[in-house]
């Protein structure tokens, strides 16, 4: 009964929203967006693209124009990693018993795989301004490498302190780079390096630098979270 009622009113809500959006003339129909009416059009002008030097316009926006959002986003991840560690408590912890014993093959295989994964992630991060990808997926892939280590070896504990250090330092450098923008240019997080040619690896000014920092930070943060989820208090 309760479920039916809930379904009814929520579906009604959905229908209402759809109808309201349909009725709104200013809201463009799906697929009929006119970019000329939007601010994004200006991201795609030739002079702006050349000024940014990033082939991936999304990256240009994420790290360049809206780098402040990204700083905030990294902060969200940072604070949730901090929070997870905080909630689970800083007491001595041991590995969670996963109830399956990884065999030799898995261990060796995972070590091989680890190398491949890490190389991939570095590639993804460094080419963030050229191809899809970038710091976030790259960082997450680094974290998944750590995760693999955890799964392959039931005694494995990574160096959480090290993660924290990377996290803190990468974050600080991010901010410092932003502040350098304030010093060498006029605004926080403004580019102060030469941008190079669009489409080349060494281009786009500070974007690759920041993406590397983001990758490191996201990777270490998520790895920290994973560590927290895979451990528990000793006495338990």
């Amino acid at each position: 009964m309760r479920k039916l009622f809930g379904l009814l009113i929520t579906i009604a809500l959905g229908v209402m929203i759809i109808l309201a959006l349909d009725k709104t003339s200013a809201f463009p129909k799906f697929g009929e967006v006119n970019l000329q009416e939007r601010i994004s059009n200006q991201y795609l002008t030739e002079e702006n693209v050349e000024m940014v030097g990033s082939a991936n316009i999304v990256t240009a926006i994420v790290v360049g124009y809206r780098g402040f959002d990204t700083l905030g986003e990294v902060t969200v991840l940072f604070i949730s990693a901090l929070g997870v560690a905080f909630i689970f408590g800083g007491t001595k912890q041991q590995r969670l018993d996963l109830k399956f014993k990884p065999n030799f093959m898995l261990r060796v295989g995972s070590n091989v795989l680890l190398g491949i994964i890490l190389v991939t992630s570095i590639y993804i991060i460094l080419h963030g301004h050229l191809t899809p990808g970038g710091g976030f997926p790259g960082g997450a892939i680094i974290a998944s490498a750590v995760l693999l280590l955890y799964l392959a070896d039931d005694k494995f504990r990574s160096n959480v302190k090290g993660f924290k250090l990377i996290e803190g330092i990468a974050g600080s450098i991010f901010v410092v780079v932003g502040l350098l923008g304030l010093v060498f240019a006029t605004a926080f997080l403004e580019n102060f390096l030469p941008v190079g040619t669009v489409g080349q690896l060494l281009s786009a000014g500070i974007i690759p630098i920041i993406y590397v920092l983001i990758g490191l930070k996201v990777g270490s943060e998520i790895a920290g979270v994973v560590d927290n989820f895979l451990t528990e208090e000793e006495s338990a």
Partner: protein
Amino acid sequence: MNAVLLIVIPLLAAFISIVSKKIAPYLLLVVGLFNIVLLFFLENGLVFIGGFDVAMNSDLLGISLLLDTYARMALWLINGLILVIFCLNFKSYKAFSSILLLAMAGLNGLLLTNDLFNFFVFLEISGIAAYLITSANKKPVSTFRYLVIGAIGSSLFLFGVVVLYAMYGTLNMIVMIQAIQASGNYAEVILPFTLMFIGLGVEAKLLPFNAWVKGVLGHSNTLTGPMIAGVYAAAMSFVLGRFITNLFVFEGSLLIVVTVLLALGILAGDVMAFSSTKTREILLFSSIAQASIVALLFVNGVIIWAVYLIIANALSKTVMFLVINKATKDVGSDESEALRGLFVNNKLVGLTFTLVTLSVMGLPLLAGFVIKLNFLTQLAGIGQIVLIAIILVASVIEGIYFVRLIVKLWYPGESEISVKYNYSFKAVFIVIALALLVFGTYSTPLTKLDNTIDTVMEVVNNG
């Protein structure tokens, strides 16, 4: 000097603080002071962030911050309060310093940002910081409830922002305001405004989106109580005020619904407080009513007195929650019966608590009275007699339960209770009570500031 430092420096400090836990509390102190001092040197205006060549670029491509007198007052209040509250809890809640730094950054960002999506990001930062702060209550279910409701709220807010972006093609608040005013079709923006209003309403404790408040503040301690009821409530009220006065256009059915909700919030808040026997519940329900009053004032365009009301409330609620939560901790119960005679041996604390409560009730000689009378006068000037009647009827109920509480706290029951307050607590209480007393008897500075508070549009129009 750049307003972005207000956000970035706490962030930087937070990042550093994780490397070395020991310096974290001191970093918070330094950064808090730095922010307060920095605010004196900053100029009003827009600050651009990111992008490539700001001078060449159209500045709307990136994110910008807006510092005006409104934001400045809010920032002073919030940074100062965080600093004070942390100092008072320095020993017991040291571990929270990183989180408080992030909360500071998040709240400063909320108040400064001029970009809707950026606002969402800061909403999440400050929100998560709030969830973590409330985890100090050791009531995970309440915190979880807060988290879920907060997540719903921010999702709705983002939904609204995105719909607005689809309609007007920008995320910049100022451009958005101009675009909406230019289009002039207010019926079309009902959906995004409703969604955004609800999203903000969750954090700003507006009825009926505030079910989390009871669990969170009902079990609060000396850190969470003042932080959530003082700092966060003030910040969210300020933010809500900015959105209501600048962005939202409440007309027709939306105006009616919002007004009804807020009026209901005022009445229900006070009625619920009336029916509570637990002191913390009384305080939290009263703060729900106050938040609704503030929002109602913003909806009716009474900006300056709403700002003062926010400030007065934040200060008052900080004191009240500190007093009650400390006592609750020592006594072990927050039933008003159990706290009978709390002030018998703490006359000074009792006096300040009484003064502060009188200010919240809006009785003369205290700031609350001046503020209440002025905003009521302005409401009367625009003919909102019904709203005045609602606010005043609620204030009768409020008066009754507060008097009941005060009398109970002053006169002992069967057993004596002993609660010790530190000198630092007492100092804060006295300063706040004196400030309320001074501005209550000498209100000329308040009326003078009236003209210097400007809205976003005015800042833009003046360059």
